[in-house]
């Protein structure tokens, strides 16, 4: 059975970069860097580490280019896969709780002085809830929600079946709902009030 062929919008740049076209290589770097950076930053929550991962991923891209077969996979999927694996390696080695050091402790339950602070607190709570998820669940949520990838592609990146992705996402969503349970009411109140007014 022949392998499926995918449409890859970056295929032209990849082919030219493979032949040694420096301009195409530069354009390819500009096109893929933001998504690699976003994924690595969301997984690691550390700018220096995210930069290292982004650079390492691009170096691996150059290494794979000579043997890259166009049409068998999207280059973005491959880049997501490498980025995710590099981030997992770093998370395993450091064994750190990603968000714990930089974020404030549980917020004061008393009314908040302004919307900006409320938003800041909300951000830190969501970040902490995401950071509390196991690595693979967090990656599944990030790839599905923030990168808007379909389950099939997330499965390729994480090396699991579509059913396993769905199960991973269900567990992640359950854990997030649990972690953010108390915040939901608080979060929706000002927004609902604002819309009604």
């Amino acid at each position, binding site marked *: 059975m022949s392998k499926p062929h995918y449409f890859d919008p970056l295929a032209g740049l990849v082919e030219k*970069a493979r032949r*040694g076209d*420096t301009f195409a*290589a*530069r354009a390819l*770097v*500009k096109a893929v*860097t*933001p998504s690699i*950076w*976003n994924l690595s*930053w*969301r997984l690691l929550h550390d*700018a220096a580490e*995210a*930069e290292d991962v*982004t*650079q390492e991923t*691009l*170096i691996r891209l*150059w*290494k794979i280019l*000579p043997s890259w077969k166009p049409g068998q996979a999207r280059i973005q999927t491959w880049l997501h896969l490498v980025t995710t694996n590099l981030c997992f390696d770093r998370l395993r080695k450091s064994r750190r709780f990603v968000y714990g050091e930089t974020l404030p402790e549980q917020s004061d339950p008393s009314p908040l002085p302004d919307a900006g602070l409320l*938003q800041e607190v*909300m*951000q*830190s709570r*969501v*970040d902490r809830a*995401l950071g509390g998820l196991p690595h693979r669940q967090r990656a599944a*949520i990030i790839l599905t*929600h*923030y990168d808007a990838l379909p389950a099939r592609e997330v499965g390729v990146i994480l090396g699991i079946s579509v059913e396993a992705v769905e199960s991973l996402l269900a567990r992640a*969503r359950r854990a*997030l*709902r649990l972690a*953010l349970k108390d*915040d*939901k009411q608080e*979060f*929706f109140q*000002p*927004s*609902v009030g*604002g*819309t009604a007014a």
Partner: protein
Amino acid sequence: MTQISSDPLASLLEQAGPVPTPPLARIEAAAMAAYKAQNLGRPLWPVRLAALAALVIVGFGGFIAFQSWQTSQSNQKAMQADADAFAEELITANLDPTY
């Protein structure tokens, strides 16, 4: 800014902290340095060998084609000369037309 989506969890996830701007210039410089280093280190002999082989094949084929054309030309000239000589012989032979 805040939207009320059909999925409250998705709305909550939208409230996550923003991703900082990537240091694009630094990343691009490092990536291009790695790309150029890899391209410089790439061996050129396969390309050169392939070009030489193509040149030899084209040259040999061209030589054979030229030789064949030249032979056919000289053969044609020889046949023409034979035909002319035979015609001349017939004219000068003073053959008896009643025979």
